[in-house]
C-alpha cells in the first residue's frame, strides 16, 4: 500500500475537516444530564427508548413498487414472506405528480419508477390479500398525499379495519419537494393547507397515523451536506408545527404524530452523530420554542434509508458493502425503521433477488452483528460526541438564517436552500473529478471488463394496462356522483373546509388521482419554480 500523501486533507464526505485525535478536551463543555441524558430521557440524544433495540428491533421496511398494482402486490407478498415487517409504497411519477395515465406528460412514465395508482380500484388491487389492520404501511407521496391517504383509508375500511387503530405513514412533506425533489403541484401556502388539514383530520379520526414524514433523504440526495440535511429537515419540521399552531391546533394534539426520514450516507461517524444531534435539537425546539408538554412531542422518531446517490453503476456488487456500512450507521444512530438499497439501484429498480439480498443485509445486522445488544454504543465517544455537538451548532446557525428570512416557506421562495444544496453538489462533483475524493470502481480501482448484472426492465405494457383499466373505470362508474364530489372539493378548497372528508367522498365515487388534483389545480393554480443553476 502506498502511504497516504502528507498533503491530503482529512474530511468527511460532507467536506467537514476532522482532527486526528479527539480527547476529553473535545467534549469538555458537555454536561451529561443536560446534553445527553440516558436513553429514553430528555433531550433524547442517546435514543427515545430506554432499552434501545432490546425492547423492539427497528422495522425492516423495504420501499417497493413498479408497474401495475398487480405486479407490486406480488412483490409485497414476496417481501412479507421473506420476513419484511412493514410495507413501503413507491409510486410512479404520474401518480406522484397527480396525472392520470392518459395525460400527455404521463407518456412513457407509467409504472416506470414505481407503481401506478389511478383510482381506488388500483388501491384495492395493491393491497389485495394483505391485512391493513395488521401491519403498517408507509407511502411515499407528497403533493397528492391526501388523495392517496383517502384511498388507503377506504381500502382499510372495506377490509374491516378500524381507523382508530390503523397505523402507518404518509410522507406528506411538501417543503422538501420545493427544496430538493421538485415533485410539487400547488404553490407553497396552499400545499401547507393540505398538510394541516391532514393533521386536523387524523387527530380526530386516525389518531395512530403518522401524518407526515419530514424528510432529509431527498435533500441529501440532491447534494446537501450532512449538516444541511439536518438543518433544512428540522427547520421544515418547525415550519409544519408553526403552521399547525397557526391553523388553531394545540401543539401536543398533532406533534406526537410527526415523524422524520433521514438519509444514511457513507461517512460512518458523521451519520451516527447526525441522528443523535437530530434528536437533541428536536426535543429542545419542541420544548423551548413551542412549549410542548407531552414527552411524545419531544421525541424525534425516524426512518432511515441508505444513500441511493452513493451507489455506483460500476462494479455494482460493491454496493452491497456500501449499503451494509450505511445501514450499520443508521442502526447505531438509533433508527426506528430502515430501508436498505439494492445493489442494482444505480441501474434500475431492483429485481426480486436484489431486493431480497437488501433485506437480508438488515437481518444480518440485527441477528448476527451484536450491535443491537447495547443502547447508543457510541455515547461518550470523544469523536462522536464532538461531531454531534458540531452538527447541532451548524444546524442552529442555519435556523437563525432561515428565521431571519421569515421562515422556511419564505426561504424557499427566495431559492435559498436550493442554492445552498446546488453549491454543495457541485463542490462534491469537483472533488470526485479531481480525485480528491475516491469512489471505488469509478475514479479509482476501475475494472476493465465488467460482467453485466441482470436488471429489471419495465416496458410499456404497464402503461397500456393502466390506460385500459382507466377507460373501463370511466365507463362503469357513476359519473354524476364523481362530478358532484369534485365540485364539492373545489368549493371546499376555495373556502376553509377541511379537504379530507371531501377527498374521501371523491375517492369513494372512484374519482381518479388526476381528477382530484385537477380540481385543486382549478382553484389554487400550479407552482412554477425559477430555473436557476
Amino acid at each position, binding site marked *: 500500500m502506498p502511504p497516504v500523501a502528507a498533503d491530503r486533507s482529512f474530511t468527511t464526505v460532507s467536506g467537514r475537516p476532522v482532527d486526528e485525535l479527539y480527547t476529553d478536551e473535545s467534549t469538555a463543555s458537555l454536561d451529561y444530564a443536560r446534553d445527553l441524558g440516558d436513553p429514553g430521557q430528555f433531550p433524547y440524544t442517546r435514543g427515545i427508548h430506554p432499552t434501545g433495540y432490546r425492547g423492539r428491533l427497528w422495522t425492516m421496511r423495504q420501499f417497493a413498487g413498479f408497474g401495475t398494482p398487480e405486479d407490486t402486490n406480488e412483490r409485497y407478498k414476496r417481501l412479507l414472506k421473506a420476513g419484511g415487517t412493514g410495507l413501503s409504497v413507491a409510486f410512479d411519477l404520474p401518480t406522484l405528480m397527480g396525472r392520470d395515465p392518459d395525460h400527455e406528460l404521463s407518456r412513457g412514465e407509467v409504472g416506470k419508477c414505481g407503481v401506478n395508482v389511478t383510482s381506488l380500484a388500483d388501491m384495492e388491487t395493491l393491497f389485495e390479500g394483505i391485512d391493513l389492520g395488521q401491519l403498517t404501511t408507509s407511502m411515499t407521496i407528497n403533493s397528492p398525499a391526501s388523495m392517496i391517504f383517502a384511498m388507503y383509508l377506504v381500502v382499510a375500511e372495506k377490509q374491516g379495519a378500524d381507523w382508530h387503530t390503523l397505523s402507518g405513514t404518509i410522507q406528506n412533506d411538501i417543503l422538501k419537494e420545493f427544496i430538493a425533489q*421538485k*415533485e410539487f403541484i400547488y404553490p407553497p401556502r396552499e400545499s401547507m393547507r393540505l398538510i394541516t388539514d391532514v393533521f386536523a383530520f387524523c387527530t380526530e379520526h386516525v389518531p395512530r397515523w403518522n401524518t407526515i414524514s419530514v424528510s432529509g433523504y431527498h435533500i441529501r*440526495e440532491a447534494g446537501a451536506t450532512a449538516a444541511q440535511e439536518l438543518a433544512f429537515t428540522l427547520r421544515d419540521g418547525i415550519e409544519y408545527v408553526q403552521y399547525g399552531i397557526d391553523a388553531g391546533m394545540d401543539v401536543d394534539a398533532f406533534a406526537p404524530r410527526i415523524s422524520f426520514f433521514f438519509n444514511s450516507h457513507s461517512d460512518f461517524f458523521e451519520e451516527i452523530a447526525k441522528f443523535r444531534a437530530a434528536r437533541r435539537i428536536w426535543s429542545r425546539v419542541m420544548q423551548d420554542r413551542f412549549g410542548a408538554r407531552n414527552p411524545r412531542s419531544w421525541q424525534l422518531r425516524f426512518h432511515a434509508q441508505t444513500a441511493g446517490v452513493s451507489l*455506483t*453503476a460500476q462494479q455494482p456488487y460493491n454496493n452491497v458493502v456500501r449499503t451494509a456500512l450505511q445501514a450499520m450507521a443508521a442502526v447505531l444512530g438509533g433508527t426506528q425503521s430502515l430501508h436498505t438499497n439494492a445493489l442494482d439501484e444505480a441501474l434500475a429498480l431492483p429485481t426480486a433477488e436484489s431486493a431480497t439480498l437488501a433485506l437480508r443485509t438488515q437481518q444480518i445486522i440485527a441477528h448476527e452483528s451484536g450491535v443491537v445488544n447495547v443502547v447508543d454504543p457510541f455515547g461518550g465517544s470523544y469523536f462522536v460526541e464532538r461531531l454531534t455537538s458540531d452538527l447541532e451548532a451548524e444546524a442552529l446557525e442555519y435556523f437563525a438564517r432561515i428565521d431571519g428570512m421569515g421562515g422556511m416557506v419564505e426561504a424557499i421562495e427566495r431559492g435559498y436552500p436550493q442554492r445552498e444544496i446546488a453549491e454543495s453538489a457541485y463542490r462534491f462533483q469537483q472533488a470526485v473529478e479531481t480525485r480528491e475524493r475516491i469512489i471505488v470502481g469509478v475514479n479509482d480501482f476501475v475494472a476493465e471488463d465488467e460482467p453485466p448484472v441482470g436488471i429489471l426492465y419495465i416496458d410499456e405494457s404497464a402503461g397500456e394496462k393502466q390506460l385500459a383499466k382507466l377507460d373501463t373505470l370511466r365507463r362503469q362508474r357513476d359519473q354524476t356522483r364523481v362530478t358532484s364530489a369534485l365540485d364539492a372539493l373545489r368549493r371546499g378548497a376555495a373556502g376553509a373546509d377541511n379537504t379530507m372528508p371531501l377527498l374521501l367522498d371523491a375517492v369513494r365515487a372512484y374519482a381518479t388521482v388526476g381528477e382530484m388534483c385537477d380540481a385543486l389545480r382549478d382553484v389554487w393554480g400550479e407552482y412554477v419554480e425559477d430555473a436557476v443553476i
Partner: protein
Amino acid sequence: MAAVRVVIAKPGLDGHDRGAKVIARALRDAGMEVIYTGLRQTPEQIVSAALQEDADVIGLSILSGAHMHICPRIVELLRERRMHDVLVVVGGIIPDVDIPKLNALGITGIFLPGTPMQTIVEFIMGHARARTSLTDSTGANQ
C-alpha cells in the same frame, strides 16, 4: 471562436435535477453558453427552446425510464424543423439494451452514472457544429 450554445433540459415528470444542474455548471465553467430550461419540459418545448436560443447542443437529463419515449420524439421534431446539425446528448439512467436503439436514432453521446464531467465536455467540444468566424463577439449569429 464563439462559445458553443447548449440547452440543458429535464424532460418528463421527474424533478431530480442534481445531475442537470451539476452538468450545466460544468459546461459553463468549460466556457460554453448554457441555457437551463427548468423542469417538466415536453419534447416540443425543448426543441422550441433550442430553436429560439440558436443552440448547437441539446443535453437531456433523464432518470425516469422515459427515454425511449422522449428521445425519438426530440429527434423527429429536430428533423421536422430542419435542425439537423443540433447535437443531442443524453445523461442519466439508460439500460444497456436501449443504447443501440438510441445510437440508431443518431444519439451517440450517452453518459451513464459515474461519467467524468470532463468526458462530457470533450465529447461536446468534439461533436458540436462548428461556429464560424461569421459569428461575431457580440453573440449575434449569422
